[in-house]
């Protein structure tokens, strides 16, 4: 499913992608590799959405949140595996990260069990990797343990003995310094004031620098045995790392499979979280129908909720093209967006937030109308931008296209604008596109020979205007009075309720009265 940036914004696709973004790196990678479903993918989309809802029925929100937090905590072993497979040496910090990976998967599996997740779908574990790393596990982390190489224990013992010997010699020299010079050589270097001691440095002490007032000395305790022990130790430790890295490299396919499974789980849990928040259904996939009941345009619902308002779910049944009219503030644009949003949900394998739905999997969703911002960017007028947009959409329109047209040609003369819109609707219908066309022009559906729909509109005329510019109160009143249902338009075209809404929004009385008089005459 393709949708350009403007359409993506209008139908809430950007919001949806963010809402179902996986928690961890594996999920993001997995998602990047999964294109949206399109025509021909109906069975796969159905299976994914059904699986999401089945899992959502078993898990609660807290459990899903905990599992997603667990996924976020899983470290990414990809770069380590690449280096291991290439035969590069690994660092101890790499082995530590692999222990974290094993632990994170174990924790995730435990959280899955605790949440009541189906056993057959449990997150992967890396038992073989755990066994490989086990000797290096310490209570706090990871240490390149003696058992990782046959000669490591002896090399460490020899190095520790050589170091102790050097340390003992250094301490003996330090004692001589304290006795002879009265100075406690705490660090590597120490300074001796000439007026305190002018003699030769004690055996084992070298002079590093001299000034007029003092000499900087250092204790020298060279040890060929220590250097040799260090070299042997370094060799044994590298041998241990190489051996361990080879065993990790051998497990790379298993680890890659586990991370791939984690990615799929991450994607799924993101969708489960969405379903638990917004509800949803398994849509019937029907290339010829776009229908839904009690559907929620979630981005708008969320925005309304942030302002303490409620979203009114919508229902629509559309085959081919239809024209939608109705009052201002009645939700025509929201209806268009809802249609696009539900199709986008299905294309992303997300349960559409509706009680029931029959949806196509469009190859493309395109929004026409309100190109003001793009027009400003391209120096076209709003009208010119709309026309260019319509031209481009028509060029690619087919049965696999969902076209959402929002008040096309409203910025030109109404007679010509209406004629152009009728022609556009006819062209879309002729191409077999799914098209929902919102307009205030009268008679477009009849002229184009498509279905006419309208928003039911204001229930009465008893609304008090907003006082002192209290828009919140005005919106509450509109909300209470507006019937947002989409119904078939029968008989005379519906009013736009523009004058009543202007009065409600506290436009000056004299203007509203004059407009009403003009309208009535």
């Amino acid at each position, binding site marked *: 499913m393709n949708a350009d940036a403007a359409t993506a914004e209008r139908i809430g696709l950007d919001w949806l992608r963010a809402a179902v973004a996986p928690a961890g790196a594996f999920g993001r990678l997995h998602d990047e590799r999964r294109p949206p479903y399109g025509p021909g993918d109906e069975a796969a989309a159905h299976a994914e959405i059904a699986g999401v809802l089945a899992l959502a029925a078993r898990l609660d929100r807290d459990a899903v949140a905990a599992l997603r937090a667990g996924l976020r905590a899983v470290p990414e072993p990809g770069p380590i595996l690449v280096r291991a497979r290439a035969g590069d040496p690994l*660092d*101890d*910090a790499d*082995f*530590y*990260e692999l222990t*974290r990976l094993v632990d994170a998967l174990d924790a995730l599996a435990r959280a899955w069990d605790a949440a009541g997740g189906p056993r057959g779908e449990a997150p992967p574990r890396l038992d073989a990797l755990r066994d490989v790393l086990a000797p290096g596990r*310490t209570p*706090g*982390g*990871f*240490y*390149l343990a003696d058992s990782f190489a046959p000669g490591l224990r002896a090399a*460490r013992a020899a*190095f*520790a003995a050589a*170091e102790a010997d050097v*340390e003992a010699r250094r301490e003996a020299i330090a004692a001589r310094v304290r006795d002879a010079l009265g*100075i*406690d050589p*705490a*660090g*590597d*270097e*120490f*300074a*001796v*004031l000439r007026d305190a001691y002018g003699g030769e440095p004690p055996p084992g002490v070298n002079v590093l*620098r001299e*000034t*007029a*007032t*003092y000499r*900087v000395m250092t204790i020298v305790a060279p040890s060929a045995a220590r250097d040799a022990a*260090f070299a042997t*130790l*370094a060799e044994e*430790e*590298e041998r241990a*790392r190489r051996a361990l890295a080879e065993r990790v490299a051998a497990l790379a396919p298993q680890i890659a499979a586990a991370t791939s499974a984690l990615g799929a789980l991450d994607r799924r849990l993101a969708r489960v979280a969405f379903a638990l928040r917004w509800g949803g259904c398994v849509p019937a996939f029907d290339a010829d129908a776009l229908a839904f009941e009690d559907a929620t345009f979630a981005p708008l619902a969320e925005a309304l909720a942030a302002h303490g308002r409620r979203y009114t779910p919508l229902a629509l049944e559309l085959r081919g093209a239809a024209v939608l009219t109705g009052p201002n503030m009645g939700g025509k644009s929201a209806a268009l967006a809802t249609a696009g949003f539900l199709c986008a949900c299905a294309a992303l394998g997300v349960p559409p937030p509706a009680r029931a739905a029959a949806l196509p999997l469009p190859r493309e969703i395109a929004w026409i109308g309100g190109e003001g911002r793009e027009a400003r960017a391209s120096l076209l007028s709003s009208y010119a931008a709309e026309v260019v947009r319509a031209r481009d959409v028509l060029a690619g329109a087919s049965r696999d296209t969902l076209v959402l047209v929002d008040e096309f040609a409203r910025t030109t003369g109404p007679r010509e604008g209406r004629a152009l819109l009728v022609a556009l609707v006819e062209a879309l219908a002729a191409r077999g596109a799914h098209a929902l066309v919102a307009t205030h022009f009268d008679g477009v559906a009849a002229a184009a020979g498509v279905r006419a729909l309208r928003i039911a509109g204001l229930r009465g005329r008893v609304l008090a205007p907003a006082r002192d510019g209290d828009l919140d109160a005005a919106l509450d009143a509109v909300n209470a009075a507006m019937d947002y249902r989409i119904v078939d338009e029968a008989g005379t075209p519906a009013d736009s309720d523009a004058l009543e809404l202007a009065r409600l929004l506290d436009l000056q009385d004299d203007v509203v009265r004059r407009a009403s008089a003009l309208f009535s005459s």
Partner: protein
Amino acid sequence: MVVGTAKNVGKTTAFNALRAVARRRGVAVAVTSIGRDGEPVDALDAEPKPRVRLAPGTIVALPAGLLPRSPALEILGTGAAGALGVTVFARAVLPTACEIAGPPTARAMRATIERLRTLAEGPVLVDGAIDRVAALAGGADAVILAAGAASGATPARVAAVAAGAVARLGLPGRDPARERGRVIRVDGALDARDAEALLAEARGATVVVADPTRVALRGALLAALCEAVDLRCERPLRVVACTTSPVGRETVLDPRALVRAVAAATRLPTFDVVADLAA
């Protein structure tokens, strides 16, 4: 945290002396650095630098890129990433010498210090930098100021520089009981232009900055401002001592005279940890 008045003033030497004392007393410490330390020569000016020798049991935070391969350390955790890789928290199992460095920001350094606190039984020692000392602001941690011949050609000059730094870092915290007049909060750095405005219009007021590192003033202007207003900070630092290094690149000062001068100017216990002097 040990911070210096300039480069090559004995900061790492003082840091190592603290570690040596801790070791002698059997105190297991945790160490890290704000700059890059422990390398044989300074990465910037190729001056000789002391190595950081880790005794068994020492906890260290350093970038993965500086993790010594031998003797191996026990890896205890990882943290924020920087130019040299993620910060690795590790414990020395056998004696080893290494370079250490810390994360690049004060915020990440604060997190690193907090993590080290949870891992170590003893104190956390930081080879610090004066412009990153804000990582300690508001806590009970101690700051030690290293001063040396690299910052002045005479003991008096080194002492004056040290006293200025101590005055700045020792900026007192807020004391609501003493705030009688206006309280002016300066967001961000308090610079010469701010000082000029405050001297002209805010005499007698309490002026508050976030922490002492936000005061971008020194010398006479800072002294004049402190005289005119009650300069305070939200998150103070605790400067507890100074160290001295008489050897500069072009100057060698008298160690005793330097210790005495710095102690007198800063009114803090002052030590030359190399020459075993104190004042």
